Every structure is written in structure tokens, then in C-alpha cells.
């Protein structure tokens, strides 16, 4: 756990210059009438010399959804980890249902009725849906599995939550949302009264999120207590009963949700008025030049087809749509990652061959910032600096020999604009936070400048402060003359950045919105994606 040094957008002024006066902070007592499901008394955690969590007092009322928010390193995940028994507290007591519990071991937490559902799901891909729900605790008679009993129990649980998952489907064939549901069913089956969710919606598309929220509300109605860590403040405000804000390892404040506004949450999280990170960032210069990239008839058998658009230098094209609409396939095809794809492509007005390998796409000046940073973007064991210079090693070499002095300078130059701490340049990139990893990937293309930059889910799993920096960086790329094509599940981001938006549904392009002529809103994109207003066809 590292203390994140806040960086103001575009300024070097530290965000946390005026820490809130701890004495003034009063934890609102939400549980005057009911006894709390969870009570933390002076719970703190120290990792070596770093105090990751200063003593926390917190009551969480039974039968509520309680959200914990804060930037990375604020202490919310540490708190969640202590409750889950994954991290043992250095000081303090945890009471569950009024009784003091000695956690510090996931199995003891489980016995106390606490189950955590992490971002990284613990689903066994080759087993069936049912087997995954009863993983480790199968229903049996003697040594024989009671398949029938498990099937009917599964149906009962699923029915209670209003979800339908084929019982015999292999878990790997299910969507992430369904896999997550299996984990929730598993938790209920294990008699969990308190369910911890760590960033449950990051991998979900909008309708799937809605479905998850419905499940969460149903669980609350059944009397479960849900503790929920998320970066998505709109969702937190929409679903929770109470919100606790953490900052720099301290609990800052708990209030009932209706007593919070988004701006107040952001201020409490960042310690300074940050405003709306999704403020609109339109293109500042005229966009009447030649298209930097122009594509027609893009097709990938079985995935996408009938797509065509052009993007000028300096312009950001947003690609809206639901998960599974073919957004990512479109970017992958353009980046040369789908060798079966085809289409017509013009770069700077010149007809060129459709890229079928990443190398061909790079030769055309097309670069991708992939959704999966860890597997497709970064060489985790290498330093941040080495990752920046990777696509153009020749630029840091003299007659084939790497010039380390030059490499260090070049990497420092490329990362500076993104507010990247130069001290971290020589740390293995795998040890950095998601926000810093994304900055390294963006710095890579600031160093080896493409003509067309494709970005897939640029702020996934990144905390609020870094999110604003990433969005600003994308606009800065466009201002410097790149054509940017951006896919994001967070439609607010597209609305904040894009000059034009194409909307995809079932692999087809169903809408085209020019922000200078029509109103660009999340609502408009969703309506198109759901086919509500199909008369907007292009």
C-alpha cells in the first residue's frame, strides 16, 4: 500500500496541503436503533514503516448497503481486507453482530458470516455453474455427490435473486457478469450475512451493472449487509445507504447517502475542490483538414461489419455501445490484431493495405492502448522507462547499442507531461498502480508518436484523481495532431472527450453523433445502443 501523492490537474500544487482537522470529524451514528452488523473499534494497519490505515471507528448497520470510497491507497481496500480476514489488523477490535471476532484468516471470517467477492473472480473455468456455486462445500450423502439436491438448491437461489444461468454451462462459457453472479450465489450458499464487494462493476457493461444492482438490492431486502468498494461515484450514490470516505489512510467521514453530493464526495476524497472530472473537453482548434484515417466496409466474420468512418487529425472519435457490441473488436481489427478482418483504409488520404498484423498497423502509424494493460500492454518485469521506449528502441540506441543515459532522459521527457513521478521510472512496472501503468502506456505513444491512437477502456480500474489526468492526456494527444479513437464503458468519459461518436450494436454501426451539431449525452448513446431511436441510422 503506497501513499499516493495527489497531483492537481496541470499544476504541481499538492492536493492534500490542508488535511481536514481530525477532531472535527464526527462519525454519524447510523445505528442508533439497530445494533450494527459490523463495528470497527480503533482498527489500524501498519505495513513496515507505513501506516496504511490510521485507527478507524466505524459502524455499519445491518441490512444496508455501505459504500467505502477513496483514492488508491486511501485505506478503503485495507479496511475491506481486514474485514475479509485477508489482512490482519495491527490494532483494534472487529465486532460482528455485537460479538468480538478475531479475524485475520479468511476461513475465520467466513465462519463469522463474512464473504468477500473480489475483482479477480475465483471461478474454476472448466467446472459447471452449479459446481462452482458449491465449490469446496458440495452437498453430498456420504461420499456421493447429491447432484439433484445441488441442482434444485441452485435453481432456488437463482430464482430468489431473479437471475437465470444455465446450470450445466461450463463457467468459462459464461460472461463475467454471470461468473460474478455465481460467486454471489456461492456466498449466499455459504450462509454469508455480510458480503464484501471490491469494485464489482468495473468489468460489467451498463445493463449488467443494473442487473447486479438489482441483485444487491434483493440481498439487502433479505437482510444481508453489503459493503461495497467502488471508484464509480454515480453508482455508489445510486445504490448505497451510507458512504464512508477514506483519504490518505484515514477515515474522513461517514454520512447517509442522501446527505452526500458527488462534488462533496470528490472533495472529501481529494481534499480540495476538484470539480467535475467529466467536464467537457472539446477540440480547441478548427477541424477542417484532411482525415488522418478513413475506413470503409470494415468486417470481421462473426463479429463486426458495415462500419465506416473517418477521423481528422486533432479529433477524438468515441465508440459507444454495450459490452459485446463489437467495440473492442473494431479497435483490435484496426490495430492489426484480427488477421481475419478486412476493409478499406486510407491514411492521410492515401489508400493503403488493410493491416493484418500489429506490425503492419504500426507501420501505418496506428497504435493501440489496450484494455488489458497487464497482458497486452506492459512487460511487467521491465522498468517503467524500458516499457516507454519499447516500440522504438532504435531511438535510444547508437549503432545498435542501447544508450542508457539517453533512454532515461527520453523516458523522463515522455512521462513528465502525464504527471508521472520520475522516481518511479526505474521501478518494475508491475509494482505500479493502475493509473501509473496507464500513464506509462500513454507515455510510450508520446515518445513514439503514431498518427492514429486507439484507446480501449483508458480509465478502467483507475482512481478518480488519475482518471482526470488520463482524460486530459487524451485531449492533449489530439491537440498535438493525433487522431484518437476511444472506446469506453464509462459513457460519461466519451461525452466528456469525443468530438464525434459512433454507436455500435451487435457488431453494426447504428448511430453517428456529431457533438458540434447534436447534443451528446449518455442518454442519447444508450438509446441508440438499445435501438430505441433507430431512425438516427447513418
Amino acid at each position, binding site marked *: 500500500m503506497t501513499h499516493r501523492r495527489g497531483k492537481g490537474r496541470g499544476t504541481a500544487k499538492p492536493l492534500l496541503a490542508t488535511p481536514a482537522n481530525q477532531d472535527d470529524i464526527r462519525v454519524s451514528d447510523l445505528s442508533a436503533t439497530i445494533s450494527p452488523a459490523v463495528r470497527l473499534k480503533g482498527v489500524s494497519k501498519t505495513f513496515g514503516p507505513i501506516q496504511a490505515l490510521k485507527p478507524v471507528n466505524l459502524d455499519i448497520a445491518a441490512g444496508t448497503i455501505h459504500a467505502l470510497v477513496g483514492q488508491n491507497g486511501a485505506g478503503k481496500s485495507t479496511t475491506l481486507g481486514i474485514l475479509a480476514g485477508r489482512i490482519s489488523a495491527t490494532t483494534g477490535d472487529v465486532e460482528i453482530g455485537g460479538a468480538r471476532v478475531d479475524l485475520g484468516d479468511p476461513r475465520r471470517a467466513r465462519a463469522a458470516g463474512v464473504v468477500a467477492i473480489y475483482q479477480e473472480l475465483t471461478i474454476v473455468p472448466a467446472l459447471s455453474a452449479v459446481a462452482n456455486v458449491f465449490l469446496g462445500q458440495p452437498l453430498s450423502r456420504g461420499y456421493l455427490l447429491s447432484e439433484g439436491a445441488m441442482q434444485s438448491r441452485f435453481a432456488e437461489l437463482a430464482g430468489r435473486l431473479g437471475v437465470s444461468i444455465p446450470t450445466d454451462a461450463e463457467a468459462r462459457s459464461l460472461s463475467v457478469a454471470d461468473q460474478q453472479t455465481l460467486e454471489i450465489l456461492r456466498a449466499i450458499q455459504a450462509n454469508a450475512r455480510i458480503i464484501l464487494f471490491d469494485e464489482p462493476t468495473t468489468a460489467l457493461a451498463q445493463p449488467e451493472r443494473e442487473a447486479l444492482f438489482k441483485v444487491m438490492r434483493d440481498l439487502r431486502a433479505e437482510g444481508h449487509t453489503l459493503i461495497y468498494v467502488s471508484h464509480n461515484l454515480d453508482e455508489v450514490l445510486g445504490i448505497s445507504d451510507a458512504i464512508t470516505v477514506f483519504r490518505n489512510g484515514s477515515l474522513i467521514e461517514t454520512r447517509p447517502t442522501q446527505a452526500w453530493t458527488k462534488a462533496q464526495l470528490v472533495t472529501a476524497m481529494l481534499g480540495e475542490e476538484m470539480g467535475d472530472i467529466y467536464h467537457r473537453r472539446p477540440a480547441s482548434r478548427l477541424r477542417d483538414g484532411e482525415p488522418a484515417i478513413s475506413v470503409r466496409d470494415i468486417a470481421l466474420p462473426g463479429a463486426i461489419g458495415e462500419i465506416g468512418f473517418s477521423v481528422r487529425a486533432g479529433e477524438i472519435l468515441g465508440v459507444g455501445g454495450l459490452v459485446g457490441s463489437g467495440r473492442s473488436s473494431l479497435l483490435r481489427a484496426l490495430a492489426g490484431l484480427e488477421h481475419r478482418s478486412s476493409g478499406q483504409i486510407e491514411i492521410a488520404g492515401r489508400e493503403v493495405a488493410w493491416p493484418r498484423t500489429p*506490425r503492419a498497423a504500426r507501420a501505418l502509424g496506428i497504435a493501440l492502448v489496450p484494455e488489458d494493460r497487464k497482458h497486452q500492454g506492459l512487460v511487467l*518485469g521491465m522498468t517503467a522507462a524500458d516499457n516507454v521506449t519499447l516500440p522504438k*528502441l532504435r531511438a535510444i540506441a547508437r549503432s545498435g*547499442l542501447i544508450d542508457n*543515459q539517453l533512454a532515461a532522459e527520453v523516458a523522463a521527457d515522455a512521462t513528465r507531461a502525464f504527471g508521472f513521478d520520475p522516481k518511479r521510472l*526505474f521501478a518494475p512496472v508491475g509494482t505500479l498502480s493502475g493509473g501509473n501503468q496507464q500513464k506509462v502506456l500513454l507515455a*510510450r505513444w508520446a515518445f513514439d508518436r503514431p498518427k492514429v491512437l486507439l484507446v480501449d477502456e483508458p480509465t478502467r480500474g483507475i482512481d478518480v484523481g488519475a482518471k482526470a489526468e488520463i482524460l486530459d492526456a487524451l485531449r492533449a494527444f489530439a491537440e498535438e495532431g493525433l487522431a484518437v479513437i476511444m472506446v469506453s464503458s464509462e459513457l460519461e468519459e466519451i461525452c466528456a472527450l469525443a468530438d464525434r461518436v459512433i454507436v455500435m450494436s451487435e457488431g453494426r454501426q447504428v448511430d453517428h453523433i456529431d457533438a458540434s451539431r447534436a447534443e451528446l449525452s449518455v442518454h442519447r448513446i444508450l438509446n441508440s445502443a438499445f435501438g430505441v431511436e433507430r431512425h438516427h441510422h447513418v
Partner: protein
Amino acid sequence: MSEVSSSRTSATAPVRRRPTSDIALRYGLIAVLIVLIAVSQLLYPRFLDPQNIKNILSQNAPLGIIAVGMTLVMITRGFDLSVGAVYASGATVFASLAVAGWPLWAAGAVTMMIGVFAGLINGTIVTRLNVNPFVATLGTTSVFSGLALLYSNSSPFVVSEKAFTLLGRGSFLEIPISIWVLLMVFVIGEFVLSRTVYGRSLYAIGGNDEASRLAGLPTAMLRTTTYVICGACAALAGMIIASRLSIGQADIGASMALDSIAVVVIGGTSLMGGEGAVWRSAIGLLIVAVLTNLLDSLAVDSNYQLVIKGTIVVAAVALDAYARLRR
């Protein structure tokens, strides 16, 4: 990788603190080597005799040369089991051409071409046909040895020409030429891997192939070159052994693949790719060579030696896995 880059960049960047256990794992090998040498000297007083050291090194020159090629392959997360067969083929072809009266330089050039060609085949099968390197090179091992046996009609080529023995038995400045060649290969290998664009690319591919491909590196081509270099090293090693023994025969080198992988792994180059260094393989080679010499001089039964060496290789891999787990 990271130890290479951080030591190189330490002049310009704040040094990252490393846990002590990590340092012990990284540099513990050198300590192991020193202890091993001290023990050898105690048990066998003529161990540090210059003549003995020359013997140890020249005996192990073919193994060391192959280990350098293997290091490159393994850093890209590859594997080459066919080095033994290429080594035997190299020895056979080099000797046969000498017997046929070819000038030695031409015989050597053709032998090296055979090594390069064998590596090209391995690399192509692995990168273009996407066959797992373990299976691919296990298959080509059989193909290459079969071809070498057919070519030689399963009988050795005995060379009587005096000049032929120069590479294996000759000396320059009182040091055997095979040791010079070994040193040269190690120095070039270390330099290429740690200092050049090519070397850096190999680490990137081994660390994350998909990310490297997306960054625009020609990953398939780069991987293929490591097999080519490994094949060339094996052929060179074959020439040295043929010259040393004045004989080229196709049934040698059966243990070469395992021995060279052992040298690389004991040195600490990771089986998972992306990490390792040629200097590490040099330490690995010295450990294996000193241990063999010690066991030989103590007249330990060669069957026991097999057991001991095998145990050490498994222990080295387990240590790598353990270090990885702790990270």
C-alpha cells in the same frame, strides 16, 4: 532483466531498495561457487593448479558455448532440446569434410551453415507453425540425429590431419584455443544481450510476448533468430569436440540438451522467460564444471554423479519458483 537495467541505470536514477532475501537469491550463486572452489581445493590440493583449471575449462568449452545459445532461447521463454543432435551433426560433418580433403575454413563454414539451418528449422516450426518448443525440438532432435547417422553410415570419421586438432587442442598465449573461443562467445553473448537493441527486444518478448507484438516488435522473427544462434553455437561446439578427439561421430551429445539447460537454470535464468543473463550462465557453467571435476577427482561413481547433478538442477528450478512466489 531488472537487475541488468537497474544496475545500468543506477547512475542516473534513485536506486530501488531490494529486500535482502532477493539479493541473496540473486548473488548467492557466486557465494556457492566460491564455497565449491574452496571445498574442492581442500579435498583436492591440486585443484587450483593452472593446468587443472585449463583442463576444466577446455573440457567444458562445448557445453559452455551451447549454454550461451540456450540462454538467448530461454530468455524468450523458448527451449531447444535439439542442441545435442546439432552438436553431433556438427562434429560429424566437420570431420567428414576434413577427411574428404576440404580446406578447414571451408569445412568449418559449411558446418556453421548446418547449425544455422537447423536453428532456422526449429525457429520456423516454433514461431510459424506454433508448435510448443519442447515438442518441436524433441522432434527435430530425432530428425537431426537420424540424418547425421544416415550421412555417416553410423560410423565415425577419423581425421589424421594435424591441423584439424588446432581448435580443440591447440594453444594461443599458453591458453587452449577452445578456452579463447569459449570466452569470446560468452563476452559477445553478454554484450549483445545486455547492451543492444536486439538483446532488449529478447527480454521484452520473454517478459510479455503479446505486449511486445502490440508495440510493433517482430516477435516471430526475433524468436527464430535465437534458435538460429543456438544452432550455430551447437555446431561450433561440435567442431571443437571433433577437433579435440580427431573424430567426428553422430552418436555423441545425448546429454548435451539437459546439461546445457542445467547450466542456464543453475545460473538463474528463469524458465518463465524475460529474466536472466549470459554472465549468470557463466557462473552456472563454472559451478557445474567445478562440481564435475571435484566428483571425478574424488573418483565418485558416474552413476552417483548423475543423481547428484539431477538433484541440483531440480533444486535450482525449485529455488527459481520459490523466489517467484515470494515476489
